[in-house]
């Protein structure tokens, strides 16, 4: 079968399924067993999707026609799957356990990965034992991560998610994240922190990111002013650089012993498993960090080896394809029912939209249909008080991912356990009402309600059920989404590992900086921009 014939079959199925309401599909009592999939403690429940088990067979046929298995092999074996930049995307190698090997351009990269982990470990041990000293000789007790995008979202999301897993040695270290280029996070922070005990981690793959370097320069000056010491001494004791461009980091002044390196084959939004994860290791310890890697590795092996019809990331991706390309749904909500996953929506926004927000195929032609939908989200119970109204009674079809651990607070008081039960109950209830609408009620009371109290239902959703939120389980969860994104990219025929769309704006901003300093310099601006510029410069001149 060719992809075209697969698409054609799927369109026929979609025509047949579109009129059928989820409440009707869910009346089949075997549906839960037929549409839930499990691997290593992670449960993927697709029974509230608007499809039938046989639809999955058709979707898998499409994946096969797109040579997905071969493409997975290419990804994991280090083929240059990032074709527009001519390199591999080997985030899977970052979680490959020691002892295995993977050759890239004649070099065993697992060895390099493991030696970076060892350097991270030494650094984390020094920090945790209170022996990383600031300029006064006091122990460092505060770490500020300066990074943006992939150098911020992954560590931030993970540190927040795993805050219950701090080993005792890590509890004395306060962790902050600074990303915004305007300095608004940094300026507030610097007024509260003690320079003598603060360490900055500069994370930038290229070490040219203006957002990060602007914040770093402010931090460096703050320390030089506070200590009255040479910049060189300050850089030696208060800055760590994490980068794939060591020369650039050295140029900025980070001494080599304070550099942690990763490689150009690690994409920014796939980099929390690399040295970029240092804040995670500082927060949950190296052992916790290795569990995170182990969890992801478990999914890597599964993604590589499991048949497509049982393959969690593949199935999650195919359901997305079904919703986007066949049911015409272009909004996707991420709804974790656990406050610790507060930053997961933002993390997945970048992972999915920066990866698959593309409209050019690998061969340069335009894509035929839709690719990545608009993705957003919020902690579920809070979103219930914000945008669920639209989900229940608006005009947009939205696909939702509910993410929830079955167990929490098992070693805490009854009251907290009761709060988690409350979250679980809401998660189940919302998924149910979105699917069934007011058919969740008995027929009489539903039809007796006035129009504004009616619930249409039929909004498809996936439930991802974790046993507990642990470093291992979070590693699994994130790896599932990463591979889902890759699978969809394969089917759409696009490159998920570049982000050319963000380049032009950066370039224009540099030019605009000159315009702010020297109004009217280029004289070739559009009227909207020059109008605004004029207005801003007038206001600035007034002081």
């Amino acid at each position, binding site marked *: 079968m060719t992809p075209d014939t697969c698409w054609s079959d799927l369109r026929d199925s979609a025509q047949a399924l579109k009129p059928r309401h989820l409440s009707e599909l869910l009346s089949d009592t075997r549906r839960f067993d037929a549409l839930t999939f499990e691997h290593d403690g992670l449960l993927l429940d697709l029974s509230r999707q608007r499809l039938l088990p046989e639809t999955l067979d058709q979707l898998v046929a499409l994946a096969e026609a797109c040579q997905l298995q071969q493409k997975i092999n290419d990804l994991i074996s280090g083929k240059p799957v990032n074709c527009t930049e001519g390199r591999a995307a080997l985030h899977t190698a970052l979680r490959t356990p020691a002892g295995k090997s993977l050759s890239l351009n004649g070099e065993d990269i697992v060895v390099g990965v493991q030696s970076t982990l060892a350097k991270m470990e030494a650094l984390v041990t020094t920090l945790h034992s209170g022996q990383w000293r600031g300029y006064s000789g*006091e122990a460092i007790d505060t770490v500020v991560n300066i990074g943006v995008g992939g150098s911020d979202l992954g560590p931030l999301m993970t540190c927040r998610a795993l805050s219950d897993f701090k080993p005792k040695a890590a509890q004395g270290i306060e962790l902050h994240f600074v990303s915004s280029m305007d300095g608004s996070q940094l300026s507030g922070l610097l007024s509260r922190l003690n320079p003598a005990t603060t360490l900055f981690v500069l994370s930038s793959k290229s070490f040219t990111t203006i957002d990060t370097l602007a914040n770093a320069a402010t931090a460096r000056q703050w320390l030089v002013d506070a200590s009255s010491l040479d910049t060189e001494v300050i850089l*030696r004791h208060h800055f760590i650089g994490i980068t794939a461009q060591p020369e650039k980091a050295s140029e900025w002044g980070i001494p080599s012993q304070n550099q942690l390196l990763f490689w150009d084959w690690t994409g920014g939004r796939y980099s929390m498993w690399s040295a970029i994860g240092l804040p995670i290791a500082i927060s949950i310890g190296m052992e916790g960090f290795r569990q995170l890697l182990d969890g992801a590795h478990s999914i890597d092996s599964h993604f590589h080896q499991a048949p497509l019809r049982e393959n969690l990331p593949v199935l999650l991706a195919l359901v997305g394809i079904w919703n986007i390309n066949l049911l015409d749904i272009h909004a996707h909500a991420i709804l974790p029912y656990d406050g610790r996953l507060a930053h997961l929506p933002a993390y997945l926004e970048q992972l999915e939209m920066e990866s698959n927000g593309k409209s050019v195929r690998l061969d340069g032609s335009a894509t035929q249909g839709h690719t990545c939908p608009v993705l957003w989200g919020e902690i579920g119970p809070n979103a219930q008080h914000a945008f669920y109204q639209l989900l229940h009674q608006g005009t947009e079809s939205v696909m939702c991912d509910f993410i929830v651990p079955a167990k929490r607070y098992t070693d805490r008081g009854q009251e907290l356990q009761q709060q988690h039960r409350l979250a679980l109950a809401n998660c189940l209830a919302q998924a149910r009402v979105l699917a069934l609408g007011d058919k969740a009620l008995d027929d009489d009371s539903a039809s007796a309600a006035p129009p504004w109290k009616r619930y249409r239902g039929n909004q498809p959703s996936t439930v991802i059920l974790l046993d507990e939120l642990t470093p291992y389980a979070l590693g699994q969860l994130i790896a599932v989404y990463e591979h889902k994104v890759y699978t969809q990219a394969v089917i759409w025929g696009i490159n998920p590992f570049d982000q050319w769309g963000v380049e032009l704006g950066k370039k224009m901003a540099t030019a605009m900086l000159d315009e702010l300093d020297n109004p009217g310099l280029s004289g070739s601006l559009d009227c909207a921009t020059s109008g605004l510029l004029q207005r801003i410069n007038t206001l600035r001149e007034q002081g």
Partner: protein
Amino acid sequence: MKICVWGDELAGWIAAAQLAAYGNDIIKAGSALAPAESAIRIEPGLMNQLEQGIIGGQIRSSEEEDPFSAEIHWLAIGPGELEAASEIVAHLAAVHQDSLLVVNQSNLGTGASDQLQARLDQSKNQHVVYLPDMLQGGQAMRQFAHPEVLLVGCENDSAGTMFTALMRPFTREGTELRLMSRREAEFTKFAITGMLALRLGYINELAMLADHVGVDIETVRDGMSTDQRVGPYYLSPGCGFGGQHFTQYIEGLAGLLSKTRGSTLLETVLKQNEQHKELPFRKLWQHYHCDLHDRRIAVWGLAFKPGVATVESAPSLRVVDALLAQGATIQLHDPEALEDFRFHYGEHPQLVYCAHPYEAVNDADALLLLTAWPEYWSPNYTELHRLMREPVIVDGRNVYDPQLLHDLGFTYYGVGRASH
């Protein structure tokens, strides 16, 4: 009277020596008839009197006589050993069918004496009396023999009578007896110790400030003690207090305050004390522009205070850990605690154990003085200067004269004495 003394605290040895002098028969529990710690052995008058008691046969070890045969038991055991105390008292209750007096002079915390009492049978006239340990090293014999005031936690008349009779030789000169409940007496002891820790914390805080303001804290301290309300005690700035007992005791009180009152006052003192222990390291770190790699550093004094052979929670541990982490080589000397230190660290490529103080300073980039052992107070400065590679002295106990050292060509850092 036949009295058995339990434990190795100073108070126990003092009680044994003094009570023996007045005709009591003393059984010292344990095999040794002399204190293990030199800090106790140097207590003026103590060893002499102990010897007399031993020669006269009034003091015997528990190897010579069954300790449980005595009807009065004096407990002077370390903080944190409540369990051991309970076992002793439980055993006493089991073997004694008639009256018993247990004098508890251990710092086991508030409520401990009541717990011990619960092990005894009051109906058989078995009682615990709590006598807070107020003895100060250096004056303990005199203070025991001529107390101005005795605080006594006693809740039974016949026990009070018995205790008063026991102490009569020492209270004839009109000693004031303050009777209170055991719990109140224990709390009073707690409160006094906390107050002393606060004073130490305060003077160390002032010392840090003095460094910034450019005054000598020693001069300021002299001035402070002229105010009667302040007085001279527990106001010596230094690189932190250590010792298992004192620290443990304060930790207990700090924990109690924070748990029941949400008060962080003493916790702050303890936390700052831990940071203060690293002060000599910080001075050195700053002197060498934040780079101590491959420096050779001499450390004089490892024990937590002079006169003891242990390094339990001593500043030396924190300082040596910090120096090791920075890749320095450390040449160590201590008159008594070197072995205990070696027991903690073992052989280490960066540690050199020295039998002689001048061996330790050989070729050194700095000398850190962490314990004020008497033998360190007046060194041969010419020899020191000749032996050291860099004449830098960090004086963690303010035993040296800054001006003199400056004149002799040393770079001197004290605690709260703007550098010379």
